[in-house]
């Protein structure tokens, strides 16, 4: 446990150097998105009647989805470059491994740090949602841990993969063919029912869709309408996070032992 906190401490000292611009960006991004798409584009969407969105304004529909999707992007970033840097560029993970810290401390410490970063981003985003009047339930607060869980469902598998890479070449593939399509087609900007039926299964296997749907249920307070589905979302996300945490410990350990 203490070894893990030392790793987090290192990441926190690194973060201290950039936190001002980072916090500013965390605010700016949701403000811009919700203004442009929620209010600007949403004005047109709402004029055509809200039946397809279950009576919600487009801003209300978009805000929770965008929260989960933004967190996914940040988590994916945190799980790529800092991991490959620690193992291959700066090699700070090797420095840690030369001390009493274990590969497990190093892997878990970094994953916990990713969760902390993602929680910060999700919290700021949630404040912006409330400020825009897009929250409809006190349960909006629970949107934060669910967003973190969604983020970690990406950070975990990606971190496990990053630890096997010596160059960032394949990260482009993850972002171009993984993160970006999921960002667009996981029910963030429109209900997945609008997709042609043969494309809908893509959303079902996307961790983001589970996260988006669950976050939306909490932010809008509709979670009780379909508890079985909501529980399934939660179970799937928890399973992915648990399995990928284990995998990350394995791949980081293998890489550190190989030298």
């Amino acid at each position, binding site marked *: 446990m*203490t*070894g893990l906190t*030392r790793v987090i*401490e*290192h990441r926190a*000292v*690194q973060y201290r*150097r950039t936190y001002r611009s980072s916090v500013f960006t965390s605010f700016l991004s949701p403000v811009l998105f919700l203004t442009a798409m929620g209010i600007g584009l949403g004005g047109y969407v709402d004029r055509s009647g809200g039946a397809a969105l279950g009576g919600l304004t487009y801003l209300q529909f978009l805000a929770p989805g965008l929260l989960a999707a933004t967190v996914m992007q940040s988590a994916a970033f945190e799980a790529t470059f800092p991991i490959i840097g620690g193992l291959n560029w*700066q*090699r*700070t993970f*090797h*420095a*840690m*491994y*030369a*001390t*009493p*810290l*274990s590969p497990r401390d190093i892997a878990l410490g970094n994953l916990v740090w990713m969760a902390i970063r993602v929680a910060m981003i999700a919290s700021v985003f949630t404040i912006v949602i409330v400020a825009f009047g897009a929250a409809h339930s006190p349960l909006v607060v629970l949107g934060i841990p669910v967003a973190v869980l969604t983020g970690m469902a990406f950070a975990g598998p990606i971190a496990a993969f990053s630890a096997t890479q010596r160059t960032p070449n394949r990260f482009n593939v993850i972002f171009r063919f993984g993160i970006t399509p999921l960002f667009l087609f996981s029910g963030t900007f429109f209900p997945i029912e609008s997709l042609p039926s043969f494309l809908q299964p893509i959303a079902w296997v996307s961790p983001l869709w589970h996260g988006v749907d669950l976050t939306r249920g909490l932010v809008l307070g509709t979670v009780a309408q379909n508890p079985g589905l909501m529980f399934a979302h939660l179970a799937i996300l928890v399973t992915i996070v648990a399995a990928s945490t284990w995998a990350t410990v394995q791949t980081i350990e293998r890489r*550190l*032992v190989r*030298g």
Partner: protein
Amino acid sequence: MPPSPDSSLIHARGLTKRFGDFVAVDAIDFDVAKGESFGFLGPNGAGKTSTMRMIGCVSPISDGELRVLDHDPGTEGPTIRARIGVVPQQDTLDTELTVRENLVLYGRYFGLSRAECGRRADELLDFAQLTDRQNDEVEPLSGGMKRRLTIARALINEPDLLLLDEPTTGLDPQARHLLWDRLYRLKQRGVTLVLTTHYMDEAEQLCDRLVVMDKAKIVAEGSPRQLIDRYSTKEVTELRFPAGVQETLDGKLDGLAERIERLADRVLLYADDGEAVAVAAHERGLEPETVLVRRSTLEDVFLRLTGRSLIE
């Protein structure tokens, strides 16, 4: 004298490291005593780094026996790592943080309090002659400064044993001498040093005792002086001939010295009186471009043992 097994800080018998079919370290035996400065000398790929990584408990042994500080690296890695300092071949500093932050954070890995880390960082900054750069980022520092910081960092837990993997490779001569001076001070304070190098001058400067490694095996062991006495002559006469001449010398050098080595660009004649060899060569009518008489070094020992130069 080699230490007896029970007083040694590192004890290895039949120590082996395999990567698949490749044998990186092939059943080597050695002991390192407390307070000793011990070296692994050998060319790149001889198995030095693999050996160091096993001692540092970051790479499991494939076969044989290894005890470090009287613990088993296989099961007590963290306990051992808490008491050793490691200077890896490649720097592992956090180059975006300051010099001081690097020291303090590293101390924290060992569970030291922030106050204690700060106190030790002050001392070590002074030792590494980096006090006036302590609040600068690491990235723009020179190679020599980064290396000194890495050594300072490895001392933050006041280790019983300091492992240095090629501490001066890639540094310019001035930076190397400054580093040797710092390591010599540590040696005088009684810190046990274990280092690898492919520089014979470094081994001669720093090592009380060393093993010569070649192709995963130990081929000789002793103090630098002992090795030179055993495997070489007091002096060496180097003759360099104009291009094409060396190939025509068949038999003309026979009997001039105890032993003759022909390298691509020169001929080495081993004898206790190098001056006499030079004179005798001249009397035979040989006309080398340059003649150099020098003392034998570990380079000559290596050449004798393996038939190859250390740095090719």
